[in-house]
């Protein structure tokens, strides 16, 4: 399931819902992304996430479908927030559920790596020196490329 929303989410509630009513599920893997208070050497007071309504949901659904093709998942969830967020705030939740841990852990790792390079979101940071757009990291491309080769 995909959700793109401004509001915060409750991790416990979301993970509990994911496995509810499916006793086949033996494990849930999750990744929670938070706003850091540093960007390079600068303090970050806040960041704003912009997205492309329509394409963002479409790409996330494609990424989720690809994870389900590669691993035997019983459930999966991606929640990504947009709008203005402050250090410590949750940005993203990726969760995968499977009968065994290997598939859940690998699929969760795959989803967050792939999401970072393919889902249309852009971060702008508020620093004491003013506002600036975050540049894409080549390490992120490298992380996604590994999965494409694999």
């Amino acid at each position: 399931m995909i959700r793109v929303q401004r509001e915060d989410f409750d991790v416990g509630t979301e993970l509990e819902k994911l496995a509810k009513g499916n006793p086949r599920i033996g494990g849930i893997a999750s990744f929670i992304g938070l706003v850091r208070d540093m960007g390079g050497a600068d303090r970050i007071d806040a960041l704003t996430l912009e997205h492309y309504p329509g394409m963002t949901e479409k790409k996330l659904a494609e990424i989720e479908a690809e994870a389900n093709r590669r691993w035997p998942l019983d459930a999966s969830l991606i929640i990504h927030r947009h709008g203005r967020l402050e250090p410590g705030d949750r940005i993203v939740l990726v969760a995968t559920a499977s009968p065994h841990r290997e598939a859940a852990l690998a699929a969760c790792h795959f989803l967050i790596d792939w999401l970072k390079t393919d889902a249309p979101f852009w971060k702008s940071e508020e620093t004491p020196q003013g506002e600036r757009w975050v540049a894409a990291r080549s390490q992120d491309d490298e992380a996604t490329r590994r999965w494409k080769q694999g």
Partner: protein
Amino acid sequence: MRILYFAWLRAKIGTAEEELELPSQVHDVNGLLQWLKSRGPGYAEALKNLKTVRVAVNQDYVGPEHEVHDSDEVAIFPPVTGG
């Protein structure tokens, strides 16, 4: 054609969205970007280095040779930085 701009491309071009009629010589993404560059200093600045520009047609990533039509929704944006 409906064209959407995001992040610093939107800021440099000065609009989030516009409706444009394609000139007859524009057939593909590369042609579209070259034509947009000629529309003003904001466009020229935003599209100066095409290595930092991504294009989606009808909400799918495409390369420079992808054909474009007046009925398409085209989005132009920098590499993504979500997650």
